[in-house]
């Protein structure tokens, strides 16, 4: 069965996403269990794949028995297995935790909702495992379509946000496809490994360069690289809470992963620096994005919007790592893909929990929640501290590697940007923490009816949600610290062999 592993990650998600609406029509609640079982299966497969890759090296799988370069090839190497495990693991925690939120928000359309969730994850994992440039486009569109629909479910404001997201997202996809066209006509192949061989052996041409630029713009849009981030804040803010909790930690990461793939497996080493200045563009735009995103986050009143801009900033951080195009840079980028997925997962889960219990998400209204929801607030604090990058949380180590990678290239400005960004993160996140812990709110008009209250050992009566929300939240928060402390193991066994 190990030989089939690459396919076993995305395919069940895809198949069961078609089944989910039917199941949902029969029994609403069953759709949830179907989704959780499928995601858990894919997560387990990702974990197994990672173990297998560490032990035996990368795996390939020819789809339908057609050998590459003719057929479509799936490749699971260290990086793919790693990102897949992160994405699926966080998705699993989020889907479990958002069950009641989704029941509230989706009102009788749970079958469709979980179908879209599975489709989204199928697209994302497909993008991760595929080694075919055109197949990547197809999976990109699958995940995006599901994403548009999920955002669109967020009421009146979500509709416009979803539609705009669709227009811009499809524009990104179209650019990517155009780039693939240039590449294909230049090399005659769509297989990534094959493309790499051909490009390594031949002279650089203008059409390949043009292809690279289009791919860069297309994927830049997907990973919300400044100034192509415009779709992101609205999509995160106005989508349903169950949705943004899911897409915020993972979706843009896969865009970043695809960008990294281009550097690692499609273009020869140094090509995207020397022949086309894409690495440089990523570093410069990343540097701008880190500061811009953090500065914009500081001004936001709605905490989801604040976190959305923080994502813009953090993704720019990943972009810098990729753009440096050195092993250390890649390690920093990949580590931050993991760390950011965990940190944002923690933060959005905490915000979702607050919204589930009290209905608020504006910063001023958070006053006093540290006392009402102590565990949720503690988890949020962990996520926030990790974002600031205080050791030994995960966020520190991505900062560490990126600092080293920047110094290695004598990019002192980038070093300054990386360091200053954590001060800026502290500025906007501590604003929230101050509010949650300190502000004495005389009459907080949270809805929190009696039924929402939850008596916990040691803490007494709180407004904490039940264990199905708390447990995933605490686990993801704990992972931010544990994986931070264990980062050397991750880097040594997974990231260094993979890059």
């Amino acid at each position, binding site marked *: 069965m190990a030989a089939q592993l690459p396919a076993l990650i995305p395919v069940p998600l895809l198949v069961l996403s078609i089944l989910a609406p039917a199941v949902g029509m029969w029994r609403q609640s069953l759709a949830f269990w179907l989704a959780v079982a499928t995601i858990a299966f894919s997560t387990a497969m990702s974990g197994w794949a990672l173990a297998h890759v560490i032990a035996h090296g990368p795996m390939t799988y020819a789809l339908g028995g057609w050998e590459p370069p003719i057929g479509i090839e799936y490749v699971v190497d260290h990086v793919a297995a790693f990102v897949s495990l992160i994405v699926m693991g966080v998705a699993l925690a989020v889907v479990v935790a958002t069950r009641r939120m989704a029941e509230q928000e989706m009102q009788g359309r749970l079958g469709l909702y979980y179908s879209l969730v599975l489709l989204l994850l199928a697209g994302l994992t497909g993008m991760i495992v595929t080694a075919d440039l*055109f197949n990547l*486009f*197809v999976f990109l*569109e699958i995940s995006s*379509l599901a994403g*548009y*629909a999920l955002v*669109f479910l967020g009421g*009146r*404001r979500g*509709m*416009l946000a*979803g*539609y705009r997201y*669709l*227009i811009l997202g*499809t*524009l990104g*996809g*179209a650019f990517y*496809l*155009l780039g693939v*066209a240039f590449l*294909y*006509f230049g090399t005659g192949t*769509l297989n990534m490994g094959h493309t790499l061989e051909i490009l390594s052996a031949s002279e650089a041409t203008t059409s390949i360069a043009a292809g690279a630029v289009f791919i860069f713009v297309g994927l830049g849009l997907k990973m919300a690289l400044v100034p192509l981030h415009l779709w992101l804040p609205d999509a995160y803010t106005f989508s349903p809470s169950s949705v943004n909790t899911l897409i915020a930690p993972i979706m843009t990461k896969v865009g970043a992963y695809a960008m990294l793939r281009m550097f690692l497996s499609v273009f020869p080493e140094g090509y995207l620096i020397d022949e086309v200045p894409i690495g440089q563009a990523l570093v410069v735009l990343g540097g701008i994005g880190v500061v811009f995103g953090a500065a914009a986050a500081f001004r936001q009143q709605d905490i989801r919007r604040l976190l959305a801009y923080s994502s813009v900033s953090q993704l720019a951080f990943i972009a810098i790592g990729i753009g440096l195009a050195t092993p250390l840079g890649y390690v920093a980028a990949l580590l931050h893909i993991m760390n950011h997925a965990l940190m944002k997962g923690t933060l959005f889960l905490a915000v979702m929990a607050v919204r589930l219990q009290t209905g608020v998400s504006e910063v001023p209204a958070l006053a006093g929640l540290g006392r009402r929801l102590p565990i949720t607030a503690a988890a949020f604090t962990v996520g926030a501290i990790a974002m600031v990058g205080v050791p030994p949380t995960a966020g520190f180590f991505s900062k560490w590697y990126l600092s080293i990678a920047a110094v290695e290239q004598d990019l002192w400005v980038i070093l300054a940007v990386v360091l200053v960004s954590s001060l800026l993160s502290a500025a906007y996140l501590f604003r929230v923490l101050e509010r949650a812990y300190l502000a004495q709110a005389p009459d907080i008009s949270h809805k929190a009816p009696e039924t929402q209250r939850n008596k916990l050992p040691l803490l007494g009566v709180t407004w904490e949600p039940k264990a199905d929300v708390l447990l995933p939240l605490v686990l993801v928060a704990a992972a931010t610290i544990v994986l931070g402390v264990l980062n050397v193991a991750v880097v040594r066994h997974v990231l260094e062999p993979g890059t």
Partner: protein
Amino acid sequence: MDELAARFPYFMIAILLAVGVWGMVGKRSLVKKLIGLNVLQSAIILFFINGSIRDGGTVPILFFGEHANAEEFVNPLPHVLMLTAIVVSVAVTAVALAFLTRIHREFGSVDEAEILSEMEQQA
């Protein structure tokens, strides 16, 4: 002159691309944005197909027993890819149209500025 003629399809494709992007980004009407999107996707499809053409090439159908010489056929792969791309494009258009009907029912308009101003009033 021949040079120019040979490049004619590329100019047309470039113009279509530009029109498409302009429609998506520059137009206020959400419907026109969608039309721009379709123009853009058509341009890309044309680009792929145009690239597959070979002078004197014929339909890539292999009859049993015949000797196959790749020089005689147009490249079939882009056509196959574009079938998929068309499917994707149709799916996106369908989803977008579904969104549009919902938006129109909700706001009574498909003009971005009008929708925004109405949302402001609501808020």
